[in-house]
């Protein structure tokens, strides 16, 4: 999530719908927008009160084209709505040229777009997590909407958690653990032993760490609340002690262990698996260390021991006969890697308790302060007692 930098100083906020849409009954719009505000009040102590007249905090209008704020709407499609951050007044404007709908796969779902815009009204910017409500792109009608963990963390960073004495926290399959206190840092297995099996990003933009038979989801600055969880509970049919994993541009996630691999769409197995690596990834050896999709060319790179292989599914053969090559071609990246992950234009390589940030554009480990390798526990898992600086065993690591 991303915070714009302003927020409301009061918890009770009023709103008014000054101009209703042309194609929906007013009472139904009232209900949908009330539901959209409730998305945020379910997880905070915020209270939203609708007024029909007079001064309010958030004014809502359905408008077409130029409507007085210098940011004209563009007709059907394109921009659907916009809203102002608290420091600019919090108002929300919806393009009345859209076909606003309720509980329908046709048109544009009013509730979802309104909930997103009200996120801006409360101080949230766009998130780069695809499954988050605050992602900028309209995803189509979602029949059973649930606020993403990323959005919950964002709104609670601004307004705090809901006081359990003032109302109930919704407990669904996804959020059933929100009332459970997170383990203290010293109890966290990732802090005491940060060596992991594999790390990968899902198609939805979530980052996961696998270690043994358990997994954690990472946030922007540590580990999400409610983890670890069992791999087998979430990815049915997938064993523990996974060697490597990656998500390809087709949105599918591939897991590797020993001589076999599994393919999932989200957390659902995508067919009959496991299959042999030698069949699905001809030219790639068994027991790989890690795999990554290099952002520089979109090709898949497998690493094992001192060597790496480049796999291009569009070519025959997918692995050229000039491979394997030595990992030492990847400047300053050590052999015998544990894991790797792509995050914000960089590829991160993990080995033992340390990681390296590889700049995909300069093709080298960044010169940074503190220098790499850095502590995975401190910088990735949020363990504040871990070493923040460069790890001292650089030469040992490289050797």
């Amino acid at each position: 999530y991303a915070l714009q930098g302003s927020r409301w100083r009061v918890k009770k906020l009023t709103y008014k719908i000054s101009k209703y849409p042309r194609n929906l009954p007013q009472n139904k719009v009232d209900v949908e927008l009330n539901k959209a505000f409730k998305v945020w009040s379910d997880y905070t102590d915020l209270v939203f009160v609708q007024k029909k007249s007079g001064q309010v905090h958030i004014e809502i209008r359905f408008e077409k084209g130029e409507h007085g704020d210098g940011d004209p709407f563009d007709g059907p499609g394109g921009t659907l709505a916009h809203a102002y951050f608290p420091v600019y007044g919090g108002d929300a404007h919806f393009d009345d040229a859209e076909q606003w709908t309720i509980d329908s796969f046709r048109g544009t779902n009013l509730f979802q777009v309104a909930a997103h815009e009200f996120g801006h009204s409360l101080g949230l910017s766009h998130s780069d997590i695809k499954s988050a409500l605050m992602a900028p792109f309209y995803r189509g009608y979602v029949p059973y909407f649930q606020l993403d963990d990323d959005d919950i963390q964002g709104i609670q960073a601004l307004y705090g958690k809901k006081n359990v004495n003032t109302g109930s926290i919704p407990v669904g399959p996804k959020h059933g653990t929100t009332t459970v206190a997170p383990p203290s840092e010293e109890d966290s297995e990732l802090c005491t032993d940060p060596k992991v099996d594999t790390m990968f990003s899902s198609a939805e933009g979530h980052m996961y760490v696998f270690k043994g038979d358990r997994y954690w989801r990472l946030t922007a600055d540590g580990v999400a609340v409610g983890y670890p969880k069992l791999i087998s509970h979430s990815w049915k049919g997938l064993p523990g002690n996974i060697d490597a994993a990656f998500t390809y541009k087709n949105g599918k996630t591939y897991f590797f262990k020993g001589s076999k691999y599994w393919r999932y769409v989200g957390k659902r197995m995508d067919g009959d698996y496991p299959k042999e690596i030698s069949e699905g990834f001809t030219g790639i050896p068994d027991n790989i260390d890690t795999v990554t999709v290099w952002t520089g060319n979109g090709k898949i790179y497998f690493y094992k021991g001192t060597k790496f292989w480049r796999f291009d599914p569009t070519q025959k053969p997918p692995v050229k006969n000039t491979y394997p090559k030595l990992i030492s071609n990847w400047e300053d990246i050590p052999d015998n890697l544990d894991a790797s992950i792509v995050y914000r234009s960089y590829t991160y390589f993990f080995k033992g308790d340390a990681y390296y940030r590889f700049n995909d554009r300069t093709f080298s480990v960044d010169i940074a302060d503190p220098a790499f390798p850095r502590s995975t526990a401190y910088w990735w898992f949020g363990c504040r007692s871990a070493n923040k600086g460069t790890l001292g065993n650089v030469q040992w690591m490289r050797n």
Partner: protein
Amino acid sequence: SEDQAPVISQTTAMNYLSQFGYLQPINPTSGGIISQNTLSKAIAEFQAFAGLNITGDFDEDTYKLMALPRCGVKDKVGPGFGRSKR
């Protein structure tokens, strides 16, 4: 089903990057020109934010995503786009 072909031009795509905070606003009255490096950096930033392959070029996936309906608020605002901790 197959995705539809992209429906926006390069000019529209540049306006898009400007509208959503990846490029400095383009002044329509002055016909200013920007360097290829600046444009490539802006495209790469958008691709990184949207979870696309980072090519720095207007490729098909980038055009397709730009053609999707979306919120009109800029992607790049406020301290959330400050220095990345990692």
